[in-house]
């Protein structure tokens, strides 16, 4: 099994603390740039804006689920370094996605969904590190498809840039996880 070794991988106590969840993350510079000057976001017709907020809220729900899924993966005890570090990093990305989506929904006048009190994951099928990686890869691939399906339907095209940026990140997660499983990391020229 080969995968990219992360530079500056967090040490174990830090990794665990990261998994214990930091809410209210500051937006990264990239996320701020995506939202910068977007006063026009809320200026569109209310029906279109409400529809965009709904799409973003569905995406937010999926990101919150991904955060929880990586938490379950880390706490399973099945992930060893450096795979555990990889999962910490990817969970952190999903937290940034969730933060951006929530702020954008609020900017559009919507109410961001909250994380569920309880998620259903097929934990009975997760018995090895490979099982956890495969489960994560499935979620990431699904996320790529979901954002691909969302990009064409935004009423406000300013939102497409942010969604496409997140899509790119999910695609990289998927490829790295496939690589970690010993699978061809990029199996085709196109994704749907």
């Amino acid at each position, binding site marked *: 099994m080969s995968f990219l070794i992360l530079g500056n991988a967090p040490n174990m106590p830090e990794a665990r603390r990261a998994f214990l969840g930091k809410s209210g993350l500051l937006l990264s510079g990239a996320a701020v740039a995506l939202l910068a000057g977007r006063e026009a976001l809320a200026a569109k017709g209310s029906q279109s804006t409400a*529809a965009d907020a*709904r*799409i*973003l*809220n*569905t*995406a937010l*729900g*999926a990101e919150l*689920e991904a955060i929880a899924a990586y938490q379950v993966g880390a706490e399973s005890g099945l992930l060893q370094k450096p795979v555990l570090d990889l999962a910490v990093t990817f969970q952190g990305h999903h937290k940034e996605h969730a933060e951006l989506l929530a702020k954008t929904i609020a900017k559009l006048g919507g109410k961001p969904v909250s994380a569920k009190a309880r*998620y*259903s994951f*097929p934990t009975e099928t997760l018995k090895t590190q490979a099982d956890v990686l495969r489960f994560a890869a*499935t*979620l990431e*691939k*699904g*996320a*790529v*498809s*979901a954002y*691909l*399906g*969302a*990009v*064409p*339907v935004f009423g406000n095209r300013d939102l497409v840039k942010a969604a496409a940026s997140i899509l790119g990140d999910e695609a990289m997660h998927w490829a790295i996880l496939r690589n970690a499983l010993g699978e061809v990391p990029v199996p085709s020229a196109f994704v*749907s």
Partner: protein
Amino acid sequence: MAAAPAAAGDPKAGELIYSRCLACHALAYDRTGPRHCGLFGRRAGGVEGFEYSQAMQGSKIVWSGKTLDRFLANPLQSVPGTAMGYAGVTDPKERADLIAYLKQANASPQCEQSTGHSCRTR
């Protein structure tokens, strides 16, 4: 515009299409989207305890191959206000394959075990 009816699909090809749905759905349990076990014959908005959009709850759709084909072609046009913010499966053959997979999955032991959960029909 109504979707053109598609020929019978290939469930094996449909399983690959279903991977697109796995961001939000699972066969046997609810996620961001409702479970797909028990889908055929179920009223849209019919999984007990799942938080549907008002649009889906009020759609009066009963899921069948035909209604799924129409919905999946363009969800936002088919049910304006749906939470399923997704452009759809625009290729009729892919839709047919996906629906064939869902029918096969619904008849599988995995779904037979899970449809003990309550759902609203009709």
